[in-house]
């Protein structure tokens, strides 16, 4: 496993808003993780040399393929990491779809970044028995 080999936690951040992308990547770095940012779902799927992700933080409203659609495409693309959704527009329908997809978290963009960090830690930190 990438994490066990390098001891690094790789987190994909997909958001078309570059300021959010950059600020969230900083937060992840400050928390000791390794963020990799993409401006669209297509950019992530087209990246040939991405590491093995431990977690994906996906914006729901994206140009082209949506975050929810991207999550469905992860398994076919050979990515098995859990997804956390972030949205600027919190509408009930999107939230329902996100939870139905079995996501690891659902947050608004205005929510505190530490909450998102905690959600990431919950999914990437392996249970003590396995360490």
């Amino acid at each position, binding site marked *: 496993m990438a994490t066990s080999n390098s001891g690094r936690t*790789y987190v994909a*951040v997909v958001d*078309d*808003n*570059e*300021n*959010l*992308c*950059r*600020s*969230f*990547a*900083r*937060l992840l*770095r*400050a*928390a000791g993780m*390794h*963020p*990799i*940012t*993409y*401006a669209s779902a297509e*950019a992530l799927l087209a*990246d040939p*040399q*991405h*590491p093995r992700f431990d977690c994906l933080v996906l914006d729901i*409203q994206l140009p082209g393929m949506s975050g929810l659609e991207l999550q469905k495409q992860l398994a076919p693309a050979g990515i098995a990491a859990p997804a956390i959704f972030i949205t*600027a*527009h*919190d*509408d009930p329908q999107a939230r329902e779809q996100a939870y139905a997809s079995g996501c690891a978290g659902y947050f*608004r*963009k*205005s*929510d*505190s*970044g*530490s909450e998102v960090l905690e959600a990431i830690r919950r999914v990437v930190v392996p249970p003590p028995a396995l360490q």
Partner: protein
Amino acid sequence: MNWITVAWPMVAAASLTLGLINLSIGVAQPPRAARLLFSLNAFSVACIAGVELALMRADSPAHFAAILPWGSVVSWVIIASLAAFIWVFFDSGNKWLALAGPGLFAVARMYDFGPGSSIHYLKITGLRTVETFGGATYKVAEGVPNPWNAISYLGVLVLLVFVVDASVRLWRRGGRRRAAVVGGSVTFTILAAGAHGALIESGIVQTPYLISWAYLAILVAMGYELNADVIAAVELGRQVQEGERRMDLASGAAGLGMWTWDIARDTIWATSKTRSLFGIPESEGLSLPRFMSALHSDDRDAVRQAIEISLATDRDYDVEYRVRLPDGQIRWIAARGRAERDSAGNPVLMRGVVLDISARRRSELELQQLQGQLAHVGRVSMMGQLASALAHELSQPLGAILRNAEAAELFLQHEVPDLDELRAILADIRADNQRAGDVIERLRGMLKRRSIEPRALAVGRPAGRGRGAHARECGRAPGHA
């Protein structure tokens, strides 16, 4: 039994009857002057029949002489009214001839009113009893004729000329029937009565005066003329009724009700369609107050005002109002009308139409309600759009500021804080704060510029953020791997 005492009153009665008929028609409708003059003429003939009868039954020369001036007065009224009647009825003839005939006659007959004198006889020597067929007897005078009486007959002659001249003029102008019938009979009467009177008074013949009998020709002629008028009036009435029926049918088919308001008498004539639109039965009389009472109370003032304006100015009467039907239902009516004026410009009557516009009004009302609902829906959806746009536009810079601040806190906890990173964070926070401020400023500008309209607005992205720049920024990230 003396048949003379029956025959003369019969002629008098016939004349009276004709006079009364013309009087009653003349009082009611034009041509008034002609009919009233003619009835005066006929009444005078009835009088002359009485005078003739009295002369025939006179019991002494003095008695006979006393009656003669009455005959003069009545004869003059006959001549004067006949001249005036022809003048008015034919609307033609020479004015001076019309005045000269009765004038000359009057001058001559003045003589009767001098002391102890008569225009007919210088002296009446006696009365003679004459027996005629049927054993009837009557009196005639014997005496010396007055030569000045020729002036009376000159007057009658002038009248004759006037009548013939007026008849010829009327004939040429196209009034042939009237010229022939009335002009002819009047001419005949004057000729017969005048000539016969002259023969009696000059002593050539000894018969009763037959002025009233000669007048029977005029009686018949005027009866014929009157009949023709009545027949024409009946025919005209039938045509008018037929026309009215046709108009009623056509207007009814078009849904139009017609009405005419006689302003002075305050009566409203209305077609059956109009009455049914207002729920007023055919049998009920219509007036302005009755019409007003059929209207919805809120619309009465407006209608009254529209009528007043139309009467006071040249503007058409054009209003829409509600009628409250007897069953309580409301009907919308559109009314148009125009005042008609007399020669002095005073409104005499108002004519117009009414149309049921309830259906149009209903759909207008429905449309208005739908528009109201649409506007409401539009407002609601616009507010929703605005709120979500605001959330979207503001949550991104605010979220970025929050994450940057949190990242800074974590960096500061490192043993050796990365100062370059902290500077970059602060610069980004400043830029995002500026961006959020811009969003609010744009929104304020948009709301100030125009009232809220139900229109989908594209959510604008801050300018100067090219896709290339973004890709570069994000594309750098995989390098951390």
